[in-house]
């Protein structure tokens, strides 16, 4: 039987491939230098040379939007990576050893969950100071509790299965059991969450950059470009239209892709979220 992918998943996959290609190929595709300032060209409307116009410093908006894709995809992947590793470790330790260790780790995780995600990221930035790297770390760390909880719940379920019992009976070491027997069996839901989280991370990072707490000038980052354009809404709307649209389209594409992935990898959660 051949399963047919839903249209939105196909759109998500194709869109994501397109975005990655454009981001990787930005140096080849971009007609100008993203950082080159030409004050005599400032605030030009879209034309034959500058397809999406220029910003306050005469930089080419189209070029900067293309390069912005590299920044955003990097931010998304790095922050989710930062969230994933401690989440996997805390979650598998709590789920596998249970009892005291579980109680202790989960109280800590619950405290972190008492902060809304963006607020947790803001508090971490407050400690580390503004900057794109710090924003990635902040968003990553703020995501740890979600992974820890998901991994713990999955480990608790898998731990009771007979093949784990068999592994314990044959005298495998605990580390071996976690890495070789349990983790491969819980990867589905974790990967699905990862994909959806990349979109969330991109959205939050661009928000932090918009507030001046993430990427710093002159970096071609979409959120930062938006905040540079907000003073010129009527004079130069192109400054904020293109980067905003790109954030929206990128996050939407990743979400569509992530939803599709979840339907395949984690049918139970998909059902909970009301996917057909």
């Amino acid at each position, binding site marked *: 039987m051949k399963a047919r992918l839903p249209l939105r998943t196909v759109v998500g996959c194709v869109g994501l491939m397109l975005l990655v290609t454009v981001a990787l190929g930005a140096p080849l595709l971009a007609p100008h230098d993203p950082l080159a300032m030409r004050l005599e060209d400032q605030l030009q409307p879209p034309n034959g040379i500058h397809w999406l116009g220029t910003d306050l410093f005469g930089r080419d908006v189209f070029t900067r939007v293309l390069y912005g894709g590299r920044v955003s995809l990097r931010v998304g992947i790095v922050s989710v990576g930062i969230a994933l590793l401690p989440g996997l470790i805390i979650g598998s330790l709590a789920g596998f050893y249970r009892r005291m260790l579980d109680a202790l780790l989960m109280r800590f995780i619950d405290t972190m969950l008492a902060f809304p995600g963006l607020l947790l990221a803001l508090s971490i930035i407050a400690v580390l100071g503004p900057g794109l790297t710090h924003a990635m770390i902040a968003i990553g760390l703020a995501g740890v509790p979600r992974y820890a909880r998901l991994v713990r719940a999955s480990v608790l379920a898998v731990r009771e299965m007979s093949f784990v019992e068999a592994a314990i009976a044959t005298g495998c070491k605990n580390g071996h059991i976690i890495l070789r027997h349990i983790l491969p069996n819980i990867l589905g839901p974790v990967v699905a969450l990862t994909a959806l989280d990349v979109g969330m991370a991109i959205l939050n990072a661009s*928000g932090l950059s918009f507030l001046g707490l993430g990427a710093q000038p002159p970096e071609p980052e979409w959120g930062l470009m938006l905040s540079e354009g907000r003073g010129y*809404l009527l004079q130069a709307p192109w400054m904020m239209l293109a980067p905003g649209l790109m954030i929206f389209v990128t996050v939407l594409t990743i979400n569509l892709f992530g939803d599709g992935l979840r339907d395949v990898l984690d049918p139970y959660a998909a059902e909970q979220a009301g996917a057909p």
Partner: protein
Amino acid sequence: MIAYIGKRLLMSIPVVWGVVTLAFLSVHLLPGDPAEVMLSQWGGSAANIAQLRRELGLDQSFGGQYVRYWAALLRGDLGRSLFTNIPVARSIMDYLPDTIELATAAIVMATVWGVSLGVLAATTSRPWIDIVCMTVSAIGVSMPVFWSGLLLILLFSSILHWLPASGQGGLQHLILPASALGFASTGAIAQVIRNSMLDILGQGYITVARAKGLTPREVITGHVLRNTLISGMTVIGLQFGYLLAGTVITETVFSRQGLGRLLVDAILWKDFPIVQGAILVIALMYISINLLTDVVYAVIDPRIRYE
């Protein structure tokens, strides 16, 4: 009922303790000497730094500082701003009503739209309403609130001149920011309402209600909506918490004063007493909303209480 609320209150004590401790620790996690870091933006002299260290009690033992922090907190004392010397608690009380106003307006908007859309999608057999519902929720979660906010400003205030772009004031200052902020939650609420209604419509007691001759309207208002309210309450409470955090960005977009902007400015200026206080207050509000949601949940759904 009282027992349930008491138990739920007791359960939130460790979380509140954890949040306060995290807020206290944040200053000590600063790389290097906290007093030096805080004044770095301002270029304080060695004497200033030593004085600040004394004022913040950083010269005392770690345990002593922790006890002092709690004692001050219980008196409602959150310290003073490093730059304006205004008590942090007073600044927060000044800005809190604006933030609550914005978050409340946004959740009301999201609830009205989300519930209507969700109910429509579940009760009519027209597929296009279903598609609208799914599209709104997909767009809602992917749309950056700072972009939708700027688009609203561009259209309704720069071009059409219908509504003011920024500032505080009456209802007309609230419409644009509340719409931008609330839109993100509209889809999520609509989606949950729709799914839970469809779920309930398939239950046996609905068939019974129909079999005893109730009209479709009576079935919906008498049996389905009441049960939908349970999952509806949960998602609305959850979204209200998110919106509270979302005000941080919305207030900057619309140049409104509020707790979020106070926090962002304080982070940029390394005004740590304000950062600590604002984060603490927002987190405590978030915890209270979750608590309140659980209590309301138990009031509507007796099954929860007896578990």
